[in-house]
Protein backbone atom coordinates (compact mmCIF):
# COMPACT_ATOMS: atom_id res chain seq x y z
CA UNK A 1 0.00 0.00 0.00
CA UNK A 2 1.37 3.44 -0.93
CA UNK A 3 2.43 5.75 1.88
CA UNK A 4 -0.09 8.48 2.57
CA UNK A 5 -3.09 6.59 1.18
CA UNK A 6 -5.97 5.41 3.32
CA UNK A 7 -6.24 1.87 4.54
CA UNK A 8 -8.55 -0.23 2.37
CA UNK A 9 -10.75 -0.94 5.37
CA UNK A 10 -11.06 2.73 6.28
CA UNK A 11 -14.69 2.62 5.26
CA UNK A 12 -15.30 0.65 8.42
CA UNK A 13 -14.30 3.56 10.60
CA UNK A 14 -17.00 5.33 12.57
CA UNK A 15 -16.65 8.33 10.26
CA UNK A 16 -17.54 6.42 7.10
CA UNK A 17 -20.69 8.21 5.95
CA UNK A 18 -22.96 5.29 5.10
CA UNK A 19 -22.46 3.34 8.31
CA UNK A 20 -25.25 3.74 10.84
CA UNK A 21 -23.81 3.99 14.31
CA UNK A 22 -27.11 2.90 15.85
CA UNK A 23 -27.53 -0.21 13.70
CA UNK A 24 -25.68 -2.59 16.01
CA UNK A 25 -27.44 -5.89 15.45
CA UNK A 26 -25.70 -7.76 18.22
CA UNK A 27 -28.13 -10.64 17.82
CA UNK A 28 -26.84 -11.27 14.29
CA UNK A 29 -23.28 -11.22 15.56
CA UNK A 30 -24.10 -13.65 18.37
CA UNK A 31 -25.83 -15.95 15.91
CA UNK A 32 -22.74 -15.91 13.69
CA UNK A 33 -20.60 -16.67 16.72
CA UNK A 34 -22.88 -19.56 17.66
CA UNK A 35 -22.65 -20.91 14.11
CA UNK A 36 -18.85 -20.69 14.29
CA UNK A 37 -18.87 -22.69 17.54
CA UNK A 38 -21.16 -25.29 15.98
CA UNK A 39 -18.79 -25.50 13.03
CA UNK A 40 -15.86 -26.22 15.34
CA UNK A 41 -17.94 -28.98 16.93
CA UNK A 42 -18.78 -30.30 13.47
CA UNK A 43 -15.09 -30.46 12.59
CA UNK A 44 -14.52 -32.53 15.74
CA UNK A 45 -17.42 -34.86 14.91
CA UNK A 46 -16.14 -35.20 11.35
CA UNK A 47 -12.72 -36.06 12.73
CA UNK A 48 -14.31 -38.80 14.82
CA UNK A 49 -15.76 -40.38 11.68
CA UNK A 50 -12.31 -40.83 10.13
CA UNK A 51 -10.66 -41.74 13.42
CA UNK A 52 -13.19 -44.55 13.97
CA UNK A 53 -13.11 -45.62 10.29
CA UNK A 54 -16.87 -45.14 10.12
CA UNK A 55 -16.97 -43.19 6.88
CA UNK A 56 -18.67 -45.99 4.96
CA UNK A 57 -20.85 -47.38 7.72
CA UNK A 58 -23.80 -45.63 6.04
CA UNK A 59 -23.40 -46.69 2.41
CA UNK A 60 -26.12 -44.43 0.95
CA UNK A 61 -26.55 -40.66 0.76
CA UNK A 62 -28.50 -38.47 1.30
CA UNK A 63 -30.66 -41.22 2.79
CA UNK A 64 -29.53 -43.42 5.67
CA UNK A 65 -30.12 -47.09 4.93
CA UNK A 66 -33.07 -45.93 2.87
CA UNK A 67 -34.54 -43.76 5.63
CA UNK A 68 -34.88 -39.99 5.45
CA UNK A 69 -31.83 -39.03 7.46
CA UNK A 70 -33.91 -36.96 9.90
CA UNK A 71 -36.21 -39.88 10.70
CA UNK A 72 -33.61 -42.65 10.96
CA UNK A 73 -34.55 -44.57 14.15
CA UNK A 74 -32.28 -43.89 17.10
CA UNK A 75 -32.29 -47.60 17.99
CA UNK A 76 -30.31 -48.21 14.80
CA UNK A 77 -27.51 -45.78 15.60
CA UNK A 78 -25.16 -48.68 16.29
CA UNK A 79 -21.45 -49.17 15.79
CA UNK A 80 -19.94 -46.93 13.14
CA UNK A 81 -23.38 -45.68 12.13
CA UNK A 82 -23.48 -43.62 15.35
CA UNK A 83 -20.47 -41.54 14.26
CA UNK A 84 -21.31 -41.18 10.58
CA UNK A 85 -25.00 -40.46 11.10
CA UNK A 86 -24.29 -37.98 13.90
CA UNK A 87 -21.84 -36.24 11.62
CA UNK A 88 -24.49 -35.89 8.91
CA UNK A 89 -27.03 -34.50 11.37
CA UNK A 90 -24.61 -31.99 12.87
CA UNK A 91 -23.54 -31.00 9.36
CA UNK A 92 -27.17 -30.47 8.37
CA UNK A 93 -27.68 -28.34 11.46
CA UNK A 94 -24.68 -26.19 10.61
CA UNK A 95 -26.02 -25.94 7.07
CA UNK A 96 -29.39 -24.72 8.31
CA UNK A 97 -27.76 -22.25 10.68
CA UNK A 98 -25.71 -20.90 7.79
CA UNK A 99 -28.79 -20.46 5.62
CA UNK A 100 -30.55 -18.64 8.47
CA UNK A 101 -27.45 -16.48 8.96
CA UNK A 102 -27.42 -15.62 5.26
CA UNK A 103 -31.10 -14.75 5.12
CA UNK A 104 -30.79 -12.68 8.27
CA UNK A 105 -27.71 -10.90 6.93
CA UNK A 106 -29.43 -10.00 3.68
CA UNK A 107 -32.30 -8.56 5.62
CA UNK A 108 -30.31 -6.68 8.26
CA UNK A 109 -26.98 -5.76 6.77
CA UNK A 110 -26.45 -2.56 4.82
CA UNK A 111 -22.91 -3.50 3.78
CA UNK A 112 -23.31 -5.42 0.52
CA UNK A 113 -19.93 -7.14 0.84
CA UNK A 114 -21.04 -8.70 4.14
CA UNK A 115 -24.19 -9.98 2.44
CA UNK A 116 -22.10 -11.57 -0.26
CA UNK A 117 -19.73 -12.99 2.34
CA UNK A 118 -22.69 -14.76 3.99
CA UNK A 119 -23.79 -16.02 0.56
CA UNK A 120 -20.31 -17.40 -0.01
CA UNK A 121 -20.57 -19.20 3.33
CA UNK A 122 -23.86 -20.80 2.28
CA UNK A 123 -22.35 -21.80 -1.05
CA UNK A 124 -19.38 -23.32 0.73
CA UNK A 125 -21.50 -25.33 3.16
CA UNK A 126 -23.67 -26.68 0.34
CA UNK A 127 -20.58 -27.64 -1.63
CA UNK A 128 -19.19 -29.25 1.52
CA UNK A 129 -22.31 -31.34 1.88
CA UNK A 130 -22.06 -32.45 -1.75
CA UNK A 131 -18.43 -33.46 -1.30
CA UNK A 132 -19.39 -35.35 1.83
CA UNK A 133 -21.98 -37.29 -0.12
CA UNK A 134 -19.64 -37.89 -3.03
CA UNK A 135 -16.92 -39.27 -0.82
CA UNK A 136 -19.37 -41.85 0.54
CA UNK A 137 -20.80 -42.75 -2.88
CA UNK A 138 -17.35 -43.15 -4.42
CA UNK A 139 -16.05 -45.10 -1.40
CA UNK A 140 -13.73 -42.52 0.14
CA UNK A 141 -11.28 -41.71 -2.64
CA UNK A 142 -8.37 -39.86 -1.05
CA UNK A 143 -8.70 -36.71 -3.14
CA UNK A 144 -12.41 -36.20 -2.46
CA UNK A 145 -11.97 -36.86 1.25
CA UNK A 146 -9.04 -34.43 1.37
CA UNK A 147 -11.03 -31.72 -0.45
CA UNK A 148 -13.90 -32.34 1.98
CA UNK A 149 -11.54 -31.84 4.91
CA UNK A 150 -9.96 -28.68 3.49
CA UNK A 151 -13.27 -27.16 2.46
CA UNK A 152 -14.41 -27.61 6.06
CA UNK A 153 -11.54 -25.40 7.19
CA UNK A 154 -12.33 -22.83 4.50
CA UNK A 155 -15.95 -22.73 5.57
CA UNK A 156 -14.85 -22.35 9.18
CA UNK A 157 -12.84 -19.27 8.20
CA UNK A 158 -15.83 -17.80 6.33
CA UNK A 159 -18.03 -18.19 9.39
CA UNK A 160 -15.36 -16.67 11.62
CA UNK A 161 -15.18 -13.76 9.20
CA UNK A 162 -18.95 -13.34 9.47
CA UNK A 163 -18.74 -13.34 13.26
CA UNK A 164 -15.93 -10.78 13.19
CA UNK A 165 -17.39 -8.33 10.70
CA UNK A 166 -20.83 -8.37 12.32
CA UNK A 167 -19.40 -7.57 15.75
CA UNK A 168 -20.26 -4.15 17.20
CA UNK A 169 -16.53 -3.63 17.79
CA UNK A 170 -15.76 -4.05 14.12
CA UNK A 171 -18.68 -1.94 13.01
CA UNK A 172 -17.71 0.88 15.34
CA UNK A 173 -14.23 0.66 13.91
CA UNK A 174 -11.20 -0.99 15.44
CA UNK A 175 -8.48 1.28 16.83
CA UNK A 176 -6.04 2.29 14.12
CA UNK A 177 -2.34 1.75 14.72
CA UNK A 178 0.48 3.28 12.75
CA UNK A 179 2.57 0.54 11.23
CA UNK A 180 6.07 0.15 12.52
CA UNK A 181 8.90 0.23 10.05
CA UNK A 182 9.39 -3.48 9.41
CA UNK A 183 10.85 -5.60 6.64
CA UNK A 184 7.65 -7.64 6.59
CA UNK A 185 4.50 -5.69 7.48
CA UNK A 186 2.40 -7.27 10.20
CA UNK A 187 -0.55 -7.88 7.86
CA UNK A 188 1.70 -9.71 5.44
CA UNK A 189 3.20 -11.76 8.26
CA UNK A 190 -0.28 -12.74 9.42
CA UNK A 191 -1.25 -13.79 5.90
CA UNK A 192 1.90 -15.86 5.61
CA UNK A 193 1.19 -17.55 8.95
CA UNK A 194 -2.42 -18.29 8.03
CA UNK A 195 -1.31 -19.67 4.67
CA UNK A 196 1.30 -21.87 6.34
CA UNK A 197 -1.35 -23.22 8.70
CA UNK A 198 -3.70 -23.91 5.80
CA UNK A 199 -1.03 -25.77 3.83
CA UNK A 200 -0.25 -27.79 6.96
CA UNK A 201 -3.95 -28.67 7.26
CA UNK A 202 -3.96 -29.85 3.63
CA UNK A 203 -0.96 -32.07 4.37
CA UNK A 204 -2.66 -33.37 7.50
CA UNK A 205 -5.83 -34.22 5.60
CA UNK A 206 -3.83 -35.89 2.85
CA UNK A 207 -1.97 -37.92 5.44
CA UNK A 208 -5.17 -39.06 7.13
CA UNK A 209 -6.95 -40.00 3.94
CA UNK A 210 -4.03 -41.90 2.44
CA UNK A 211 -3.57 -43.82 5.72
CA UNK A 212 -0.08 -42.44 6.14
CA UNK A 213 -0.60 -41.50 9.79
CA UNK A 214 1.52 -44.31 11.19
CA UNK A 215 3.86 -44.78 8.28
CA UNK A 216 6.46 -43.15 10.53
CA UNK A 217 5.64 -44.80 13.87
CA UNK A 218 8.24 -42.99 16.00
CA UNK A 219 8.55 -39.41 17.25
CA UNK A 220 10.47 -37.12 17.42
CA UNK A 221 12.73 -39.21 15.21
CA UNK A 222 11.37 -40.47 11.92
CA UNK A 223 12.09 -44.14 11.23
CA UNK A 224 15.04 -43.76 13.57
CA UNK A 225 16.49 -40.75 11.72
CA UNK A 226 16.12 -36.99 11.70
CA UNK A 227 15.32 -37.20 8.00
CA UNK A 228 13.80 -40.60 7.22
CA UNK A 229 14.56 -42.60 4.10
CA UNK A 230 11.89 -41.42 1.66
CA UNK A 231 11.01 -44.94 0.61
CA UNK A 232 7.38 -44.41 -0.28
CA UNK A 233 4.82 -41.74 -1.05
CA UNK A 234 3.22 -42.23 2.36
CA UNK A 235 6.51 -41.60 4.14
CA UNK A 236 6.97 -38.43 2.07
CA UNK A 237 3.47 -37.19 2.92
CA UNK A 238 3.91 -37.94 6.62
CA UNK A 239 7.32 -36.33 6.82
CA UNK A 240 6.08 -33.29 4.88
CA UNK A 241 3.44 -32.84 7.58
CA UNK A 242 6.12 -32.90 10.28
CA UNK A 243 8.23 -30.39 8.38
CA UNK A 244 5.08 -28.30 7.96
CA UNK A 245 4.62 -28.36 11.72
CA UNK A 246 8.06 -26.84 12.14
CA UNK A 247 7.29 -24.16 9.56
CA UNK A 248 3.99 -23.29 11.24
CA UNK A 249 5.63 -23.14 14.64
CA UNK A 250 8.30 -20.81 13.30
CA UNK A 251 5.70 -18.54 11.68
CA UNK A 252 3.52 -18.47 14.79
CA UNK A 253 6.49 -17.68 17.05
CA UNK A 254 7.60 -14.95 14.63
CA UNK A 255 4.11 -13.43 14.54
CA UNK A 256 3.72 -13.57 18.29
CA UNK A 257 7.17 -12.04 18.85
CA UNK A 258 6.38 -9.20 16.46
CA UNK A 259 3.08 -8.43 18.17
CA UNK A 260 4.49 -8.81 21.70
CA UNK A 261 7.35 -6.48 20.80
CA UNK A 262 5.59 -3.79 18.76
CA UNK A 263 1.86 -4.08 19.43
CA UNK A 264 1.65 -5.33 23.01
CA UNK A 265 -0.66 -2.46 24.00
CA UNK A 266 -3.37 -3.72 21.70
CA UNK A 267 -5.15 -6.69 23.27
CA UNK A 268 -7.16 -7.15 20.07
CA UNK A 269 -3.92 -8.32 18.50
CA UNK A 270 -2.03 -9.66 21.50
CA UNK A 271 -4.75 -11.98 22.77
CA UNK A 272 -5.27 -13.95 19.53
CA UNK A 273 -1.49 -14.04 19.02
CA UNK A 274 -1.01 -15.50 22.47
CA UNK A 275 -3.88 -17.95 21.96
CA UNK A 276 -2.38 -19.05 18.67
CA UNK A 277 0.98 -19.72 20.33
CA UNK A 278 -0.61 -21.79 23.09
CA UNK A 279 -2.69 -23.72 20.56
CA UNK A 280 0.39 -24.56 18.50
CA UNK A 281 2.14 -25.97 21.59
CA UNK A 282 -0.96 -28.04 22.34
CA UNK A 283 -1.15 -29.12 18.71
CA UNK A 284 2.44 -30.38 18.64
CA UNK A 285 1.81 -32.29 21.87
CA UNK A 286 -1.31 -33.85 20.39
CA UNK A 287 0.58 -34.75 17.23
CA UNK A 288 3.21 -36.53 19.29
CA UNK A 289 0.52 -38.26 21.34
CA UNK A 290 -1.19 -39.40 18.14
CA UNK A 291 1.99 -41.16 17.02
CA UNK A 292 2.91 -42.53 20.44
CA UNK A 293 -0.57 -43.96 21.03
CA UNK A 294 -0.75 -45.38 17.48
CA UNK A 295 -3.62 -43.05 16.61
CA UNK A 296 -5.73 -43.43 19.73
CA UNK A 297 -9.15 -41.91 19.21
CA UNK A 298 -9.05 -38.84 21.47
CA UNK A 299 -5.61 -37.36 20.75
CA UNK A 300 -6.06 -37.98 17.03
CA UNK A 301 -9.42 -36.27 16.84
CA UNK A 302 -8.39 -33.47 19.21
CA UNK A 303 -5.43 -32.91 16.88
CA UNK A 304 -7.85 -32.32 14.01
CA UNK A 305 -9.93 -29.86 16.02
CA UNK A 306 -6.92 -27.99 17.38
CA UNK A 307 -5.59 -27.59 13.84
CA UNK A 308 -8.85 -25.90 12.90
CA UNK A 309 -8.65 -23.65 15.97
CA UNK A 310 -5.09 -22.62 15.06
CA UNK A 311 -6.30 -21.70 11.59
CA UNK A 312 -9.32 -19.84 12.93
CA UNK A 313 -7.23 -17.84 15.39
CA UNK A 314 -4.63 -17.00 12.80
CA UNK A 315 -7.34 -15.93 10.38
CA UNK A 316 -8.98 -13.73 13.03
CA UNK A 317 -5.61 -12.12 13.75
CA UNK A 318 -5.11 -11.48 10.04
CA UNK A 319 -8.47 -9.74 9.72
CA UNK A 320 -7.72 -7.51 12.69
CA UNK A 321 -4.21 -6.75 11.51
CA UNK A 322 -5.59 -5.57 8.18
CA UNK A 323 -8.25 -3.48 9.89
CA UNK A 324 -6.01 -1.90 12.50
CA UNK A 325 -2.53 -1.42 11.16
CA UNK A 326 -2.28 1.53 8.78
CA UNK A 327 0.49 3.51 7.21
CA UNK A 328 -0.88 6.78 8.49
CA UNK A 329 -3.37 7.28 11.27
CA UNK A 330 -5.88 10.02 10.33
CA UNK A 331 -5.68 13.21 12.38
CA UNK A 332 -9.10 12.60 13.93
CA UNK A 333 -7.76 9.34 15.44
Amino acid sequence: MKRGTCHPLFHLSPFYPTLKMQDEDIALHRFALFTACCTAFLIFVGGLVTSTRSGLSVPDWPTTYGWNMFTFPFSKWVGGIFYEHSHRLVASTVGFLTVILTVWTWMKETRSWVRWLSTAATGAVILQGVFGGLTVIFLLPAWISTVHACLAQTFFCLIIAMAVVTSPQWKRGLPLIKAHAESVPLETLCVMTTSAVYVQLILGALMRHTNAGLTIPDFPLALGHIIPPLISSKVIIHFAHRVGALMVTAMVVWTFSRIARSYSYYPLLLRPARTMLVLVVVQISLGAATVWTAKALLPTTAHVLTGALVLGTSFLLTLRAYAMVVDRVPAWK
Partner: protein
Amino acid sequence: MQKRTLFLSASLLVAALAAGCGGGGSNEPTLPPAPSNTTPSGPSFDMSKATATVSGKIAFEGTPPPNDKIQMSSDPYCQMHAAEYSTAETVKVTDGGLENVMIYVSMGAPAGPFAPPSTPVEIVQQNCHYVPHVFTIMTNQTLNVKNADMTLHNIHIWAEKNPQFNVGQAVKGMITPTKFATPELIPIRCDVHKWMGAFVGVFDHPFSTVSKQDGTYELKLPPGTYEITAWHEKFGKKTMMVTVADNEKKDLGFSFNANDKAATAD
Protein backbone atom coordinates in the same frame (compact mmCIF):
# COMPACT_ATOMS: atom_id res chain seq x y z
CA MET B 1 -39.02 -8.10 10.02
CA GLN B 2 -38.05 -10.80 12.51
CA LYS B 3 -41.22 -12.81 11.73
CA ARG B 4 -40.44 -12.64 8.01
CA THR B 5 -36.93 -13.88 8.67
CA LEU B 6 -38.31 -16.76 10.69
CA PHE B 7 -40.87 -17.63 8.02
CA LEU B 8 -38.28 -17.63 5.26
CA SER B 9 -35.89 -19.72 7.29
CA ALA B 10 -38.63 -22.20 8.19
CA SER B 11 -39.57 -22.54 4.52
CA LEU B 12 -36.00 -23.28 3.60
CA LEU B 13 -35.83 -25.87 6.37
CA VAL B 14 -38.93 -27.66 5.14
CA ALA B 15 -37.64 -27.64 1.58
CA ALA B 16 -34.36 -29.15 2.70
CA LEU B 17 -36.14 -31.81 4.74
CA ALA B 18 -38.23 -32.77 1.74
CA ALA B 19 -35.08 -32.99 -0.34
CA GLY B 20 -33.65 -35.48 2.13
CA CYS B 21 -36.70 -37.68 1.90
CA GLY B 22 -36.25 -41.35 1.43
CA GLY B 23 -38.43 -44.42 1.90
CA GLY B 24 -39.66 -45.50 5.30
CA GLY B 25 -37.35 -48.48 5.24
CA SER B 26 -34.47 -49.74 3.22
CA ASN B 27 -34.50 -49.41 -0.55
CA GLU B 28 -32.94 -51.94 -2.85
CA PRO B 29 -29.21 -51.33 -2.85
CA THR B 30 -27.53 -50.41 -6.09
CA LEU B 31 -24.76 -52.80 -7.05
CA PRO B 32 -22.13 -52.42 -9.72
CA PRO B 33 -23.30 -54.07 -12.96
CA ALA B 34 -22.60 -57.78 -13.24
CA PRO B 35 -19.79 -58.65 -15.62
CA SER B 36 -21.18 -58.98 -19.16
CA ASN B 37 -19.13 -62.01 -20.05
CA THR B 38 -20.74 -64.51 -17.68
CA THR B 39 -20.32 -67.63 -19.78
CA PRO B 40 -16.95 -68.85 -20.99
CA SER B 41 -16.48 -69.16 -24.73
CA GLY B 42 -15.67 -72.56 -26.14
CA PRO B 43 -16.23 -75.94 -24.48
CA SER B 44 -15.72 -75.94 -20.70
CA PHE B 45 -13.06 -78.03 -18.99
CA ASP B 46 -14.29 -81.55 -18.24
CA MET B 47 -14.02 -81.92 -14.47
CA SER B 48 -14.22 -85.72 -14.68
CA LYS B 49 -10.57 -85.52 -15.72
CA ALA B 50 -9.67 -84.30 -12.20
CA THR B 51 -8.91 -87.81 -10.93
CA ALA B 52 -5.84 -87.10 -8.83
CA THR B 53 -6.09 -86.01 -5.20
CA VAL B 54 -3.76 -83.72 -3.32
CA SER B 55 -4.55 -83.60 0.36
CA GLY B 56 -2.83 -82.87 3.59
CA LYS B 57 -2.79 -80.94 6.77
CA ILE B 58 -1.90 -77.33 7.39
CA ALA B 59 0.09 -77.61 10.59
CA PHE B 60 0.93 -74.92 13.07
CA GLU B 61 4.20 -75.33 14.91
CA GLY B 62 4.63 -73.99 18.39
CA THR B 63 2.26 -71.92 20.44
CA PRO B 64 -0.20 -69.90 18.39
CA PRO B 65 -0.21 -66.19 19.17
CA PRO B 66 -3.28 -64.94 21.03
CA ASN B 67 -6.05 -63.37 18.99
CA ASP B 68 -7.06 -59.77 19.64
CA LYS B 69 -9.92 -59.35 22.07
CA ILE B 70 -13.01 -57.83 20.48
CA GLN B 71 -15.62 -55.53 21.96
CA MET B 72 -19.10 -55.94 20.59
CA SER B 73 -20.79 -53.49 22.92
CA SER B 74 -21.28 -50.81 20.27
CA ASP B 75 -24.36 -52.73 19.12
CA PRO B 76 -26.74 -54.11 21.78
CA TYR B 77 -27.83 -56.92 19.45
CA CYS B 78 -24.25 -58.01 18.89
CA GLN B 79 -23.48 -57.69 22.59
CA MET B 80 -25.99 -60.49 23.23
CA HIS B 81 -23.59 -62.86 21.44
CA ALA B 82 -20.39 -61.41 22.90
CA ALA B 83 -19.76 -64.43 25.12
CA GLU B 84 -19.40 -66.68 22.08
CA TYR B 85 -16.90 -64.35 20.39
CA SER B 86 -14.50 -62.88 22.89
CA THR B 87 -11.60 -62.74 20.42
CA ALA B 88 -11.04 -62.32 16.70
CA GLU B 89 -11.01 -65.41 14.47
CA THR B 90 -7.61 -64.70 12.96
CA VAL B 91 -5.72 -67.74 14.29
CA LYS B 92 -7.68 -70.90 14.95
CA VAL B 93 -5.57 -73.96 15.80
CA THR B 94 -7.07 -77.30 16.76
CA ASP B 95 -4.90 -80.36 17.43
CA GLY B 96 -1.98 -78.66 15.72
CA GLY B 97 -4.00 -77.92 12.60
CA LEU B 98 -4.53 -74.38 11.31
CA GLU B 99 -8.02 -73.54 10.13
CA ASN B 100 -9.03 -71.02 7.47
CA VAL B 101 -6.00 -71.41 5.24
CA MET B 102 -6.77 -70.92 1.56
CA ILE B 103 -5.14 -73.59 -0.61
CA TYR B 104 -5.12 -73.14 -4.37
CA VAL B 105 -3.29 -73.88 -7.59
CA SER B 106 -1.17 -70.81 -8.29
CA MET B 107 0.62 -72.19 -11.36
CA GLY B 108 0.09 -75.03 -13.77
CA ALA B 109 -3.68 -75.08 -13.79
CA PRO B 110 -4.95 -76.74 -16.96
CA ALA B 111 -6.19 -74.53 -19.74
CA GLY B 112 -9.81 -73.54 -19.34
CA PRO B 113 -12.31 -72.28 -19.83
CA PHE B 114 -13.97 -73.32 -16.58
CA ALA B 115 -17.70 -72.86 -16.31
CA PRO B 116 -18.60 -71.33 -12.96
CA PRO B 117 -20.93 -73.49 -10.87
CA SER B 118 -24.56 -72.48 -11.03
CA THR B 119 -24.86 -72.93 -7.27
CA PRO B 120 -24.12 -69.64 -5.53
CA VAL B 121 -21.69 -69.34 -2.66
CA GLU B 122 -23.20 -67.76 0.43
CA ILE B 123 -21.61 -65.58 3.10
CA VAL B 124 -23.86 -64.94 6.06
CA GLN B 125 -23.72 -62.18 8.63
CA GLN B 126 -24.69 -64.19 11.66
CA ASN B 127 -24.41 -63.12 15.28
CA CYS B 128 -22.39 -60.20 13.98
CA HIS B 129 -19.76 -62.38 12.36
CA TYR B 130 -19.15 -63.49 8.81
CA VAL B 131 -19.75 -67.17 8.19
CA PRO B 132 -17.56 -68.49 6.65
CA HIS B 133 -14.54 -66.40 7.64
CA VAL B 134 -12.46 -67.51 4.62
CA PHE B 135 -13.84 -68.98 1.41
CA THR B 136 -13.15 -69.32 -2.28
CA ILE B 137 -15.28 -68.66 -5.32
CA MET B 138 -14.88 -68.79 -9.07
CA THR B 139 -14.97 -65.81 -11.35
CA ASN B 140 -18.51 -65.04 -12.47
CA GLN B 141 -19.96 -67.40 -9.86
CA THR B 142 -22.73 -65.76 -7.82
CA LEU B 143 -21.92 -64.74 -4.26
CA ASN B 144 -24.97 -64.18 -2.07
CA VAL B 145 -24.41 -61.94 0.92
CA LYS B 146 -27.07 -62.56 3.52
CA ASN B 147 -28.01 -60.70 6.66
CA ALA B 148 -29.20 -63.21 9.25
CA ASP B 149 -29.13 -60.71 12.11
CA MET B 150 -31.75 -58.42 13.57
CA THR B 151 -29.42 -55.47 13.11
CA LEU B 152 -27.94 -53.37 10.33
CA HIS B 153 -24.84 -54.44 8.50
CA ASN B 154 -22.96 -53.03 5.57
CA ILE B 155 -21.02 -55.37 3.34
CA HIS B 156 -17.90 -53.61 2.14
CA ILE B 157 -15.91 -55.51 -0.46
CA TRP B 158 -12.38 -54.06 -0.58
CA ALA B 159 -11.62 -55.22 -4.11
CA GLU B 160 -8.89 -53.60 -6.18
CA LYS B 161 -9.02 -55.54 -9.45
CA ASN B 162 -12.79 -55.98 -9.26
CA PRO B 163 -15.24 -53.13 -8.68
CA GLN B 164 -15.24 -52.21 -5.02
CA PHE B 165 -18.65 -51.84 -3.46
CA ASN B 166 -20.31 -51.05 -0.20
CA VAL B 167 -23.93 -52.03 0.36
CA GLY B 168 -26.19 -51.66 3.38
CA GLN B 169 -28.39 -54.48 4.61
CA ALA B 170 -30.85 -53.02 7.07
CA VAL B 171 -33.24 -55.93 7.40
CA LYS B 172 -32.89 -59.56 8.51
CA GLY B 173 -33.16 -61.89 5.57
CA MET B 174 -31.83 -59.44 2.97
CA ILE B 175 -29.75 -61.14 0.31
CA THR B 176 -27.46 -59.15 -1.95
CA PRO B 177 -26.01 -61.06 -4.94
CA THR B 178 -22.78 -60.13 -6.65
CA LYS B 179 -20.08 -61.59 -8.91
CA PHE B 180 -16.40 -61.03 -9.48
CA ALA B 181 -14.91 -61.02 -12.96
CA THR B 182 -11.21 -61.00 -12.07
CA PRO B 183 -9.16 -63.35 -9.88
CA GLU B 184 -8.22 -61.59 -6.67
CA LEU B 185 -7.84 -62.07 -2.94
CA ILE B 186 -10.38 -59.70 -1.42
CA PRO B 187 -10.90 -58.60 2.19
CA ILE B 188 -14.49 -58.06 3.31
CA ARG B 189 -15.37 -55.67 6.12
CA CYS B 190 -18.37 -54.25 7.93
CA ASP B 191 -17.89 -50.55 8.69
CA VAL B 192 -20.67 -50.65 11.27
CA HIS B 193 -19.10 -53.45 13.30
CA LYS B 194 -15.35 -53.01 13.12
CA TRP B 195 -14.46 -56.49 14.38
CA MET B 196 -16.21 -58.23 11.48
CA GLY B 197 -13.98 -59.39 8.69
CA ALA B 198 -13.69 -62.13 6.08
CA PHE B 199 -11.60 -63.02 3.04
CA VAL B 200 -12.68 -64.36 -0.35
CA GLY B 201 -10.30 -65.84 -2.89
CA VAL B 202 -11.60 -65.38 -6.43
CA PHE B 203 -10.11 -67.83 -8.93
CA ASP B 204 -10.68 -68.45 -12.59
CA HIS B 205 -10.44 -72.18 -12.01
CA PRO B 206 -12.10 -74.60 -9.56
CA PHE B 207 -8.91 -75.87 -7.91
CA SER B 208 -9.08 -74.12 -4.58
CA THR B 209 -10.28 -74.91 -1.09
CA VAL B 210 -10.03 -73.84 2.55
CA SER B 211 -8.59 -75.90 5.40
CA LYS B 212 -11.08 -77.30 7.90
CA GLN B 213 -11.09 -76.94 11.65
CA ASP B 214 -8.45 -79.65 12.05
CA GLY B 215 -6.29 -78.10 9.33
CA THR B 216 -6.95 -80.78 6.72
CA TYR B 217 -7.80 -80.07 3.08
CA GLU B 218 -8.33 -81.90 -0.18
CA LEU B 219 -7.95 -80.81 -3.81
CA LYS B 220 -9.06 -82.79 -6.84
CA LEU B 221 -6.77 -82.17 -9.81
CA PRO B 222 -6.19 -83.54 -13.29
CA PRO B 223 -2.78 -85.24 -13.77
CA GLY B 224 0.03 -82.75 -14.06
CA THR B 225 2.55 -80.60 -12.23
CA TYR B 226 1.31 -77.77 -10.11
CA GLU B 227 2.42 -75.03 -7.79
CA ILE B 228 0.17 -75.17 -4.75
CA THR B 229 -0.07 -72.14 -2.49
CA ALA B 230 -1.33 -72.05 1.06
CA TRP B 231 -2.33 -68.58 2.26
CA HIS B 232 -3.24 -67.38 5.75
CA GLU B 233 -4.37 -63.84 6.58
CA LYS B 234 -1.80 -63.41 9.36
CA PHE B 235 1.02 -65.79 8.45
CA GLY B 236 1.24 -65.11 4.75
CA LYS B 237 1.70 -67.70 2.05
CA LYS B 238 3.83 -70.74 1.30
CA THR B 239 4.16 -72.59 -1.96
CA MET B 240 5.11 -76.11 -2.94
CA MET B 241 5.36 -78.00 -6.21
CA VAL B 242 3.57 -81.30 -6.69
CA THR B 243 3.23 -83.70 -9.58
CA VAL B 244 0.33 -86.11 -9.69
CA ALA B 245 -0.56 -88.88 -12.10
CA ASP B 246 -3.95 -90.19 -13.08
CA ASN B 247 -5.88 -91.45 -9.98
CA GLU B 248 -2.86 -90.79 -7.77
CA LYS B 249 -3.23 -89.54 -4.19
CA LYS B 250 -0.50 -87.38 -2.79
CA ASP B 251 -0.02 -85.94 0.65
CA LEU B 252 1.12 -82.33 0.69
CA GLY B 253 1.40 -80.70 4.07
CA PHE B 254 2.20 -77.11 4.85
CA SER B 255 3.52 -75.73 8.09
CA PHE B 256 3.23 -72.28 9.60
CA ASN B 257 4.62 -70.83 12.79
CA ALA B 258 4.30 -67.64 14.78
CA ASN B 259 7.31 -66.06 13.03
CA ASP B 260 5.63 -66.17 9.62
CA LYS B 261 4.09 -62.89 8.62
CA ALA B 262 1.82 -61.82 5.82
CA ALA B 263 3.29 -59.14 3.52
CA THR B 264 1.78 -55.75 4.28
CA ALA B 265 1.03 -53.26 1.54
CA ASP B 266 2.65 -49.81 1.78
